[in-house]
């Protein structure tokens, strides 16, 4: 699903964010990226989503070589990815329903289809009753769950989450993680950046640790030991 080969990422100004990264994440896997702030976790996700372009090496996502995805094809490429953020980035000028519907509206689904899928997604995260609320009126955990619903409503093959539990207490964080696991069980490949080592160890999934832009350890990883 995701393959990094000797990937370097240098930001303008000479700061090396990632150095010689080699990773392979299989389709249907669930993996964590961890490390201190500034270790390159976010950069890794941003490269996969083509928010940033890597400076050297090769990245292949879902069979597509990212170097070959031209600027005008980036939008279509991203439709196959779901995103989640620490600050959830919900739009407070519209309802929960409209927030979750955004990826479907972008893809041009008709009204019935949108309604059906949004309600299914909200049901899945247990917030169907809040579909008419404005996000700002929800609790932090609920907002994050709306974020998840929005990230999966268009049935992406890949889900990227950047510190999805960063602002939540341990109990709520665990709840969110279990939701991710459920989506993973139906086949969504999931990559989560998190510094909450305690919790992600409990999940018993693969953990990629970054330090100063390099990969350190690959727990339960046997694919890129070359």
């Amino acid at each position: 699903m995701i393959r990094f080969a000797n990937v370097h990422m240098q930001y303008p100004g000479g700061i090396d964010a990632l150095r010689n990264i080699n990773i392979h994440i299989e389709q249907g896997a669930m993996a964590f990226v961890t490390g201190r702030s500034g270790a390159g976790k976010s950069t890794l996700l941003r490269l996969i989503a083509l928010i940033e372009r890597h400076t050297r090496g090769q990245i292949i996502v879902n069979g597509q070589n990212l170097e070959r995805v031209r600027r005008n094809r980036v939008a279509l490429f991203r439709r196959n990815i779901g995103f989640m953020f620490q600050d959830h980035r919900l739009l407070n000028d519209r309802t929960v329903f409209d927030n979750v519907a955004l990826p479907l509206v972008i893809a041009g689904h008709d009204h019935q289809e949108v309604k059906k899928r949004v309600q299914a997604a909200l049901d899945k995260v247990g917030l169907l009753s809040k579909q008419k609320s404005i996000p700002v009126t929800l609790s932090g955990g609920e907002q994050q769950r709306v974020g998840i619903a929005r990230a999966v409503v268009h049935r992406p093959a890949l889900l990227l989450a950047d510190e999805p539990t960063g602002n939540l207490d341990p109990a709520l964080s665990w709840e969110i993680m279990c939701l991710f696991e459920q989506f993973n069980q139906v086949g969504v490949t999931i990559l989560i950046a998190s510094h909450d080592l305690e919790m992600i160890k409990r999940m018993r999934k693969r953990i990629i640790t970054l330090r100063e832009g390099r990969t350190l350890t690959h727990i339960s990883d046997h694919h890129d030991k070359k």
Partner: protein
Amino acid sequence: MKPQQTQTAEYGRKKSFRSLLEIWLLQHLQAIIFSLGQLCRNPIASFLTASVIGISLALPTGFFIILENTRHITAGWEGSVEITAFLKMDVDDNAARKLASKLASQSDIAKVDLVTREQALEEYRQLSGFTNALEALDENPLPSLLLIKPAHGEFSEKSAEELLNKLQAVPEIENAQYDQQWVKRLNAIIGIVQRIVLMLAVFLGMAVLIIIGNTIRMLIYHRRSEIEVAKLFGATDGFIQRPFLYSGFWYGIFGGIIAWALITLSLLLLQEPADSLAQLYTSNFKLIGLTIKDAFLLILSGVLLGLIGSWISVQRHLRAIEPV
């Protein structure tokens, strides 16, 4: 909630032309309604913006109407533009009459009045009071003359000039003339006013572009986070710019309608004084307003300026916003 591994294909190649067209239409419809909703959500601010656009459009339109009315009035004076053709002294009354009827049958001449030598002398005698002096002459010194009214519907200097040249070429005519100076001056003034109205229209059109461009720029920055999120979820540039372009469209159309309303109202207020003035001059002058075609063009120019203004703004500001 099962993922589809071939989604890229689903979104890209495999969709039929028809369903792509349907999506395209659907998204346009959504953008039209969404942008109208945005305007309605902020009715006072939207109305103020549309009013500024409306006034900017109404000003040159108003001057244009004044110009049209002036032209209409001078067209009424056209009858007073007469060419006086002096015949040669050796042309007798019969020949003069023949020439008069021949000229009257020409398509570019409306009417020919003949003043024979005797009539001219008589007139001169009465008007000048030089009766005795004239009697001292043994021969009538005055030529016959033809008073010719040009036929052309609308006054134009060119057609009058042409007619004059033609008359000069007639062998019986010694000299033909009309008050060229007066017509030339009037035309020059109309020309200047026309140029001023045109410049005003261009300047105010630019003002409308700037107003709409700036309004759209504010809208874009207001909805920055939304644009970022939409781009993350695979929105194309077209998808993102559409509502802004339609906002420009709505501002333009409402501005055009407000301009039309202002003009119509002003004309209603001017109708009465204009009528009483016309009565004082015993003229059948009627104030010309906007025809349906003019009103349509006015609103259309609003729409075009709205679309162009928002397009420029979108090109300049939307690309700069990328997800972070």
